[in-house]
C-alpha cells in the first residue's frame, strides 16, 4: 500500500528502465570513444587490439605529435591563467556584493549573473568585435582568449563563494570585531580561512570550465599556436582523424575529472557533507 502512495503511476519499473537506458545512452558512447583511444590501429570504428601507441607512440601520438602536444599545452596554460585571474576577482566580487547594500547592488547582481545565461556565441561575437574594434592593440590571440574565459567563469566563482558566505553567516566576523580585530584582520584571519574550501572548489570549477570551453576560445583564437584541445576536436573530428584525437580528448577528460574530484574531496573534508552536496549542485 505504501508504494501505491509513493508512486502515483503504478509500478515504477518502466521508470527504472527509462533511467537505466538513459544513463547507458549518455555514458556508453563516450566510453567507446575512450576505448578506441587505445586501439592498436588507425581505425576508430574497428577494434584492432589494445595499445597505448596513440598516447605515447613515436609518431602521431599525444606525447610526440607537435600539433596535439601544442594544443594540450595551450589548453592547460590558458586554464592556469584563467584560474589565477578569475578566482581572486570572483572572491573579491562575492565578498563585496554580499555586504553591498544600496543603489547599484541590484544592477551589479544582475549583470554578474548574465554571463551564466548568455549563449556563448553572443559572447564570442561581442568579445571578437571588442578586441578588433576597441582594443586592436590586444587583438585576438592568447591574451584575448584568457580575458574571454575569465569573463564567463568569474560568475561561477561568485556564485560558489557566495553560497559558502551565506552558510558561514556573520557571527564569526562580529565576534572578531567585538574582540577588537581591525577590518583587515577580520577579512584575512577570519573570513578568508572560512571561505577557503569554497575558494578551492571555485578554482577547480574554473579550471575545468576553461579546459572544456570551445566557443569563446575559438572566436578569440589567433594563429595555429592558439589552438586548444576542444578546437582541435572541432576541426579534425570529420577530417579523417586517427585515434590520437580520441586519446587527447581522453587526456583532457581525465584532467577535468581529477580536478573536480579533488575539489569535491577538499570541500567535503573542510566544509561538511551537506554543503558539499550543495557545491556539487552549484557546479552544474
Amino acid at each position, binding site marked *: 500500500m505504501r508504494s*501505491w502512495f509513493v508512486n502515483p503511476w503504478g509500478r515504477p519499473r518502466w521508470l527504472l528502465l527509462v*533511467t537505466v537506458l538513459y544513463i547507458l545512452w549518455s555514458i556508453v558512447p563516450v566510453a567507446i570513444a575512450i576505448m578506441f583511444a587505445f586501439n592498436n590501429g588507425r581505425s576508430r570504428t574497428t577494434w584492432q587490439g589494445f595499445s597505448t601507441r596513440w598516447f605515447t607512440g613515436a609518431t602521431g601520438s599525444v606525447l610526440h605529435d607537435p600539433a596535439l602536444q601544442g594544443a594540450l599545452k595551450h589548453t592547460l596554460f590558458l586554464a592556469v591563467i584563467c584560474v589565477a585571474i578569475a578566482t581572486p576577482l570572483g572572491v573579491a566580487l562575492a565578498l563585496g556584493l554580499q555586504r553591498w547594500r544600496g543603489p547599484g547592488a541590484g544592477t551589479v547582481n544582475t549583470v554578474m549573473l548574465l554571463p551564466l545565461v548568455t549563449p556563448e556565441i553572443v559572447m564570442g561575437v561581442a568579445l571578437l*568585435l571588442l578586441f578588433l574594434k576597441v582594443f586592436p592593440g590586444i587583438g585576438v590571440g592568447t591574451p584575448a582568449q584568457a580575458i574571454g574565459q575569465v569573463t564567463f567563469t568569474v560568475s561561477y566563482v561568485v556564485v560558489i563563494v557566495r553560497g559558502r558566505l551565506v552558510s558561514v553567516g556573520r557571527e564569526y566576523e562580529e565576534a572578531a570585531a567585538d574582540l577588537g580585530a581591525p577590518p583587515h584582520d577580520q577579512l584575512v584571519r577570519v573570513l578568508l580561512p572560512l571561505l577557503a574550501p569554497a575558494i578551492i572548489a571555485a578554482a577547480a570549477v574554473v579550471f575545468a570550465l576553461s579546459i572544456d570551453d570551445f566557443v569563446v576560445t575559438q572566436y578569440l583564437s589567433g594563429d595555429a599556436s592558439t589552438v586548444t584541445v576542444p578546437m582541435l576536436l572541432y576541426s579534425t573530428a570529420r577530417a579523417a582523424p586517427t585515434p590520437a584525437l580520441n586519446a587527447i580528448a581522453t587526456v583532457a577528460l581525465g584532467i577535468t575529472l581529477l580536478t573536480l574530484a579533488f575539489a569535491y574531496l577538499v570541500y567535503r573534508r573542510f566544509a561538511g557533507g551537506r554543503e558539499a552536496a550543495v557545491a556539487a549542485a552549484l557546479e552544474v
Partner: protein
Amino acid sequence: MGSRWTWRALAAPGVIWLAVFFLVAFYAVIAVAFGNEDSLSQPVPFWNPLDWNVGYVIQVLKNIVHGEQFLTVFLRTFAFVAIAMALSLAIGYPVAYFAARHAGRWKMLVLLLLILPFWINYLMRMLAWINLLSPDGWATRFLHTVGIEQLFIWLGLLSTEGGWLDGQPSTVILALVYGYVPFLIIPLFAALDRIDQRQIEAARDLGASPFSGFLRVTLPLSTPGILAGCVLVALPMFGDYYTPDLVSASAKTNMIGNQIDQLTRQGSEKVVGAVLTLILSAVLLVLMVYYLRATRRAGAEAAEA
C-alpha cells in the same frame, strides 16, 4: 566590518571587468550593427547613437520579411529547438522523476551519473557519435541490424542507408537532445525533489487516482522546474553552431548560430553578422529575463525558509 566603502572597493575590480568585457563588448555588437563597412568590407562601429546607420538592420529585416534565407534559417532554428526541447522533456522528465522519487539509497549515485555528462567535453561527446554513426560505425551497424535505419528511411528521416552524417536534420536534432538533455534533467530533479511527499499523499487520501494525483499535484508543482529546464536547454541550443557543423556539415541544416558564425568568425560580413547576433539576443533576452527572475524568486524563498 569596516565601512560600506570597503565592500565596494572589494567589488570594484570585478565590476569594472564585467563592465568592460561584458557590457562594453555587447555595446560593440550594437555599434557595429548600427555602423558601416569600409572599402575592405571591415566593420566601422558608430559609437554615438545619434550617428547610427540603420541601413544594415533594415537590409536584414527586409530579408526576413521577404521570406529569404535568414527567415528560412530562423524558422529552421525554432523548429529544431522546439522538437529537440520536446524530446528532451519526454526523456528527461521520467529520468528526473525516478531519480528524485524512486532512486532510494541509490539517489546520490544516480545524481552523480546524471551530472557526469556536464563534465565530459561537449565536443568529445559529439566525436563519440561521429565515430559511432560513420558508415561503418558500431551504431550505424546496430541501427541497421535492428531495423531502425529502415524505419527512419521509411519515415523520410534518413535519405540513404548509412548516411546518418550527411546532412540529416533528424541527426542534428537527436545530437542536440544528446548534448543538452542533462541541462534539463538537473533543474527538473531539483524541482521534483523539493515537492513535499505529504501533498501527494493528501491528494490520494482525498480519493485522487495515482494518475490524477500526478496530473493535479506533482505536475503543477514541478512546472517551475520544467520551465527553468526548458530555458536552460533553449539558450545554448539557439546559440549552437558546432553540433550541426559536426554531425551534418551541410547548409541544409544550418541554424542561426551557423549563419552568425559564417558571417562573423569565418567571413567578412561582420556587420550583417552583428545585426543577426542582435536579433538573436533580443529573442533570447525574454528567456533570460524570465530565468533570472525565476531563480531570484526561488533564492528569496529559500532565504526566507
